[in-house]
């Protein structure tokens, strides 16, 4: 077994594009779930409108920066659409409506009726050349030791982490202001917040809109980095993994989702690499597990991790217990 290679894979993935994407998605989700206690299970919908906002705008002849703005605006609108009809209902209804709405979006995007715009199941490719033409790194491979990336990937990752940093700063500034304290008050006791004269409905809407906008950045990053969008990249599973990231890092903590994402991808890739090598080398008998099944084992472990965290450490690895006794009943 090559432990060093597993470690290299794990570090690469903990700092790489998936970690950036999930950090951004997590920061957005944290505003809604961690701070406001809103159970948005359709978070992947904001990534979809973000990614497709860029792809379609550029495809129709617009510049990339306009596409980014369109994507973010679409996610804000989506947040309002999620919220307006359902925020007056209980949190479990919100969960069902949002997961259904995100699925509607995905099914419409892949339907043949919208194919002239979205290109259906084929998706849209090659629309972010403008981004890579700004790449200051000449062709080649960069990195420390064996942890290396190609010039284009490195450029995307660097920009990605800068955007993560900016969105974390935004959330930090918002949540240390009175606005953030109202959100937390809503999370802890909605009726108490209302009795103090706070417009709970309005604050929840703002939380959904801002969380969705940050989430759309994850979709935009994914679309630009891979130069492609496809409806089936935006499955409900993504939202669930984003929850795992937020809960791992500690909901209601500014840096929680970022730490959670790095840790999540490190653990995920490390266990995958170890298991894959163990099955190939025959340490795990093939009747128990084959190399193809390792990918599924990862999700089993993620699910187990979620259950155990919720049962024994709902505040995540770095949250504080008093902060996150989330109970919006």
């Amino acid at each position: 077994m090559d432990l060093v290679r597993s470690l290299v894979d794990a570090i690469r993935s903990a700092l790489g594009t998936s970690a950036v994407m999930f950090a951004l998605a997590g920061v957005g989700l944290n505003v809604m779930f961690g701070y406001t206690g809103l159970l948005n299970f359709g978070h992947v919908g904001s990534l979809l409108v973000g990614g497709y906002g860029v792809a379609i705008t550029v495809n129709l002849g617009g510049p990339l920066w306009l596409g980014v703005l369109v994507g973010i605006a679409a996610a804000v609108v989506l947040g309002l659409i999620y919220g307006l009809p359902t925020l007056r209902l209980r949190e479990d209804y919100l969960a069902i409506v949002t997961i259904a709405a995100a699925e509607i979006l995905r099914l419409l995007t892949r339907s043949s009726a919208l194919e002239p715009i979205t290109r259906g199941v084929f998706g849209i490719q090659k629309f972010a050349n403008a981004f890579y033409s700004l790449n200051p790194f000449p062709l080649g491979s960069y990195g420390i030791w064996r942890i290396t990336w190609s010039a284009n990937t490195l450029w995307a990752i660097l920009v990605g982490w800068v955007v993560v940093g900016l969105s974390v700063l935004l959330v930090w500034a918002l949540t240390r202001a009175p606005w953030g304290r109202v959100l937390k008050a809503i999370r802890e006791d909605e009726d108490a917040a209302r009795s103090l004269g706070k417009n709970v409905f309005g604050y929840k809407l703002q939380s959904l809109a801002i969380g969705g906008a940050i989430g759309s950045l994850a979709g935009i990053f994914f679309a630009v980095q891979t130069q492609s969008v496809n409806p089936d990249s935006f499955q409900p599973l993504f939202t669930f993994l984003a929850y795992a990231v937020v809960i791992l890092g500690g909901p209601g903590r500014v840096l929680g989702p970022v730490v959670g994402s790095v840790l999540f991808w490190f653990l995920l890739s490390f266990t995958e690499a170890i298991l894959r090598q163990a099955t190939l080398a025959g340490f795990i008998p093939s009747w128990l597990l084959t190399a193809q099944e390792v990918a599924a084992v990862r999700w089993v472990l993620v699910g187990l991790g979620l259950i155990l965290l919720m049962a024994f450490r709902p505040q995540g690895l770095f949250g504080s217990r008093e902060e996150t006794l989330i109970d919006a009943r």
Partner: protein
Amino acid sequence: MPTSEKGRISATRLGVFVLVVFAVVVGSEALGAASPLGGSSVVAQVSASFGGRLLNVTVDGLVVGLIIALTSVGLSLIFGVTGLINFAHGELVTFGAVVAWFLNSGSWGFRVALAIATPIAVVAGGLLGAGLEKGLFGPLRRRRVPNVSLIVTTIGLSLVIRHVILIWYGPQVHKYRDYAIEIARDYGPVSITDVKLAIIIISLLVLGIVGLFLTKTKLGTGMRAVADNRELAEASGIDVRKIILATWVGGAALAALGGVFQGIGFAGVSWDLGFKLLLLMFAAVILGGLGTAFGAMVGGILIGVSTQISSLWLSTEFKLVIAFAVLILVLMVRPQGILGRRERVG
């Protein structure tokens, strides 16, 4: 007792609903009879009048709807008695289908006819339900884990069960060996395979038995009482823990049965069969009224029939879109659903 009165009201509403459906079916049959149909089902499908096609998709929708109804009763009742939205309910459906497939296919070294494998799968589903309540949700509830955390737990559980099934069963789609090839028979303007007809009959029987169980037996009325008002039920001497356990067993068993039927009736058995049904189940449960068993039945049938009928005008891609749109619309207009009581859900 207030619960029996509520049962009567639900039963009357159910009766009205059945009458409406009956009227629609008879009406469309009259339409279909206006143009004589003949020949094999393929010809009938192609050349059928609008009424005939409507009747056929309605019957197909009834199969879909009854399967959704079977699977949603548990989802709704578990919510009713424990307040838990179970996002892992789809996996209980898949579990039943997969267990029946393993028994039927002979990959465990022996073969069992599907007619015998199905009850075994139902029992296995019930045991899984009992295990989840005894081993996971019961202890979590006693530790007063908040609702939001419990919902996230069910997400984790759904990931675990779904992917364990993927490892165990594999990514392929299999048909049950007993019903791999089926020929449709014509009954007047309707053509239907024997096995789908059997699904309709058995589902109606099972749902009828569930209805009788919920209204006539002590355990069943206890379930509805706990769903109605847990504190009051507890105060009047009902053993709530026993009721919750029974609800999990019954709900999971029904889900397993629905899973086998889904595997027979449509597309075969796959590792994510139940997950694909989950949102339709939610649509049914919300349409009928979250927490009510009869609501789930009515909602399931309505969702199944209306999505199939929509395929007359719209591309089948939009089937699910329609169902989910109905779900959201109902929540906006009448969040308590058709059979739910009006109460503050905000």
